[in-house]
């Protein structure tokens, strides 16, 4: 942390959660990161997610958003694999 970093909360679901072995964890990312950069950082942290993250959408604070959405300290960033409810 400090001037150049911030902590956000990451949430994973379904195949992403199972493959990573966790559903939620804090992650330090550079200040000013957008959601797409967070998705990259998650893949750097869990290389086994590389294949799965490509088609994952992103939600910030429980709202769908684009990869260019700039995140803030404390935001909750969820990676959303292709949905299959119903």
């Amino acid at each position, binding site marked *: 942390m400090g001037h150049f970093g911030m902590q956000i909360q990451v949430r994973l*679901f379904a*195949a992403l959660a199972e493959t990573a072995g966790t559903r939620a964890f804090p992650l330090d990312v550079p200040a000013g990161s957008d959601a797409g950069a967070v998705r990259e950082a998650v893949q750097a942290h869990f290389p086994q997610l590389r294949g799965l993250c490509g088609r994952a*959408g992103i939600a910030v604070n429980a709202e*769908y958003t684009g990869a260019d959405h700039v995140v803030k300290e404390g935001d909750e960033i969820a990676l*959303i*694999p292709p949905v299959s*409810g119903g």
Partner: protein
Amino acid sequence: MQSGAVLIQLTDEALDPAPLVESVRTDASGAVALFYGVVRDHNEGRKVLYLEYDAYRELAERQMRLVADEIVAAHDIERVAIAHRFGRLEIGETSLLVAVSSAHRAAAFDACHAAVDRIKQTVPIWKKEFWAEGGVWLDGTPVDSAGESPA
């Protein structure tokens, strides 16, 4: 105008259709269409033993409400109620209920069908299929479009 979404429910308990139907029916309703999504014992040629549903609960509830509001705005109907279950579901159990009320039947059927399609495309819920030899998270619909279209 009052929201047409009257009951939105995401639960790990057995779904009961009665309160949904009661919540959508008004004295002006001539028709109620009710859809049950049910866990079936086969998929793509494989015998299925049970399913497990995962959900991003906060976003799923928000998204179910969005779908209901969207459907009320797009169709000549009265109200929409949606219930989705998560956790482990056995064969024959109900995973999804969608109830739509309308003065006339054609609009109720169309809107109910459209709501089910939209739920499957945009609500962050996932199913894992279990067979005798293992299981897999089913592939589904990428939510880029879902993220864009309601915004």
